[in-house]
């Protein structure tokens, strides 16, 4: 009975805790979860995948998105893509960064070293917006931690789902979101308006009463529904909150015959693979010590389990002669 109560107490506290991870539902799209090499208790990054992901970043994302918290040396360090040091030194030289002031007090640009971070792409946020039609491409250094999935099941299963995520140590919401976003570029959905002004999804894309809406605001008190149309310069994305995103489909130019990124290791060159590789790379960028953390983690847990067991035996021994 007492034990039950203790467990109840802890479980209650856990449930409470987890609800902060909960978000408003509403217009949150459903995004599938993937299996990641770095998920779970013994998960570790897949070096080859991180290397491919970096290639995707370099060849696709880097034209708009900076990676300013990552240093070139990080690409060599254990637990990351672990590129050969010489290759990264050569890569760093391709980037120009501010050098310390010279003897004349001038700050000149020069080739980057291993210790330098990836240089910013824009002078400031306003400069970035000026180039990108008012939109600001976020820096990708911590993006995988800054995004996540939202629970979209029934409320009474929510505590159970939270407990499951804690026990299975689910922390890959950001990576799943990135994959969902890459797959989210689709034609704007079509709706048909009935005589009461209500909009219902249809498969036809043209015809009488067919409208293309990124989202629908339901009219209250018998008012007709409002069809929210795609704004100028925006793109439809099923996974993006609100479904309107300034970023164009980065893999729009991809086709089977002319793959957008050419892998050297024979990995399938598909958008799905690109999406997973870049998501894995960005997960590493935002959490570069995951390998180390999970390796130390199971040792700590193992140690604590043994210690707790021994303490329990000792406690039983101490209390053995005493009714309590």
């Amino acid at each position, binding site marked *: 009975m*007492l034990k039950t*109560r*203790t467990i109840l*107490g*802890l479980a*209650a*506290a*856990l*449930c*409470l*805790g*987890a*609800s*902060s*991870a*909960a*978000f*408003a539902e*509403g217009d949150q799209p459903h995004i599938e979860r993937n299996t990641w090499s770095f998920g779970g*208790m013994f998960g570790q990054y897949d070096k080859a995948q991180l290397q491919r992901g970096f290639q995707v970043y370099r060849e696709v994302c880097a034209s708009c998105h900076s990676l300013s*918290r990552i240093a070139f040396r*990080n690409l060599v360090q254990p637990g990351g893509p672990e590129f050969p040091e010489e290759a990264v030194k050569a890569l760093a030289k391709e980037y120009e960064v501010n050098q310390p002031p010279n003897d004349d007090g001038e700050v000149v640009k020069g080739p980057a070293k291993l210790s330098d971070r990836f240089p910013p792409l824009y002078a400031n946020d306003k400069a970035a917006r000026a180039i990108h039609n008012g939109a600001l491409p*976020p820096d990708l*250094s*911590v993006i995988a*931690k*800054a*995004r*996540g999935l939202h629970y979209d099941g029934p*409320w009474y299963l*929510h505590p159970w789902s939270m407990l499951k*995520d*804690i026990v299975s*140590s*689910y*922390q890959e*919401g950001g990576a799943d979101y990135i994959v969902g976003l890459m797959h989210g570029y689709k034609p704007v959905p079509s709706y048909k308006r009935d005589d009461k002004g209500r909009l219902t999804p249809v498969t036809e894309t043209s015809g009488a009463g067919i409208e293309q809406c990124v989202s629908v605001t339901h009219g209250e008190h018998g008012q007709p529904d409002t069809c929210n149309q795609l704004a100028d310069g925006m793109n439809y994305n099923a996974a993006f*909150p609100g479904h309107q995103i300034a970023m164009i489909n980065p893999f729009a130019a991809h086709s089977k015959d002319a793959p957008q990124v050419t892998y050297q290791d024979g990995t399938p060159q598909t958008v799905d693979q690109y999406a997973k590789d870049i998501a894995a790379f960005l997960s590493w960028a*935002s959490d*570069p*010590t995951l390998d*180390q*953390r*999970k390796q*130390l*983690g*199971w040792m*700590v*847990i193992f140690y*604590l389990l043994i*210690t*707790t067991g021994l*303490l329990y035996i*000792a*406690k039983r021994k*101490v*209390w053995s002669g*005493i*009714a*309590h």
Partner: protein
Amino acid sequence: MSGHEDTYKPGGPVEKWMDERLPLMRMMHGQFVDFPTPRNLNYLWTFGGILTFCLVAQIVTGVVLAMHYVPSAGAAFDSVQHIKRDVNYGWLIQPLHAVGGSMFFIAVYVHIFRGLYYGSYKAPREVLWILGVFIFLAMMATAFLGYTLPWGQMSFWGVTVITNLFSSLDEVIPGLGTAVVTWLWGGYSVTGATLNRFFSLHYLLPFVICGLVALHIWALHVAGQNNPDGLEVKSKSDTVPMSPYAVMKDMFGLSAFLILFAWFVFYAPDYLGHADNYIEANPLVTPAHIVPEWYFLPFYAILRAIPSKLGGVIAMFAAVGILAFVPWLDWSRVRSAKYRPIFKWFFWLFVIACLALGYLGAKPPEGSYVTWARIFTAYYFVFFLVIMPLVGLLETPSKMPGSITESVLVGEGHKEGGGTAAAGAVPAAPEHR
């Protein structure tokens, strides 16, 4: 519990020399070795020790973090990233502190609910309980200030929303609220000046908590521990010395708690936080949903359940403040809910209401969420203001054992004499021990 036997023997000439000048070791020995603890304590009583551990752990990790953290609007977010990426073992120390805050609150909530269930606030432990409420308040303030420091979007907007609550004082005296808010911010909006003073106070308050904890333990050691049966200690056989009995139990409890702690630190370090706080603070972009950390959610739900700003603020603070009056709101003659067949049900309903408020606090304040938040908020206050006094007055306590010793012997299956109903409940004068 002063007056228990003193078994301290100085271990050598140095200790003897010291003992004749400042008997510190004698006091520690008396309070933490000889100190009599009721023999019927269950594992919920290990949370006091766990909380002490949490406080020390937070201070130790916090002091180390402060060596690397930069409390300025331009550098705070980057300095946390720097700690996690470049500082030796920063990737471990940072989540130990961040998760540690959550663990501290899990433990304190278990501790508070335990006190409510077993009537640990009743005479002669009122001051002990009120000190606990002050510690809880100081913890909340510290946690709130600390959550500002990473300077993410939730940090920034959380501070903006919560400090702005004081502007509701404008409804009482026009201009007062605005003046208070400007004073708190150190300017006309949340800026680096706010961050800097919050960092300073975040470093100060834990030491205030230490002081309060010392008083809390002092009050505990004067009144003695309550116990699951809510019976006063009557004879020596009712207690066991703290060492090795309670110490051993506490160590086991702490070790088990550390497994949970380690699980979050190593395998779910971000689970208890919010993804938006990995976006650097931006005064120009408001997050879609501003939610506080999980441990504030029940109070946040109460704040939003009241359809008036000032009313909501008053209700939120009252929800914590009311705890201080619990010793006088409970009119029961019996301490422990174990012997209170009716109160027991209301208590568990109260636990459910708190959990539900926590859940609703994370939801947007719209539709049925608001309705439910109002229902549970109403119950929260009804529990303290109506149920506690009335049930205490009307309920017939179930049959209680005559003493702690008797209760554990019955528990062990050695039926030795029957208990007398309600006997031994809050005796007027505890006899000589």
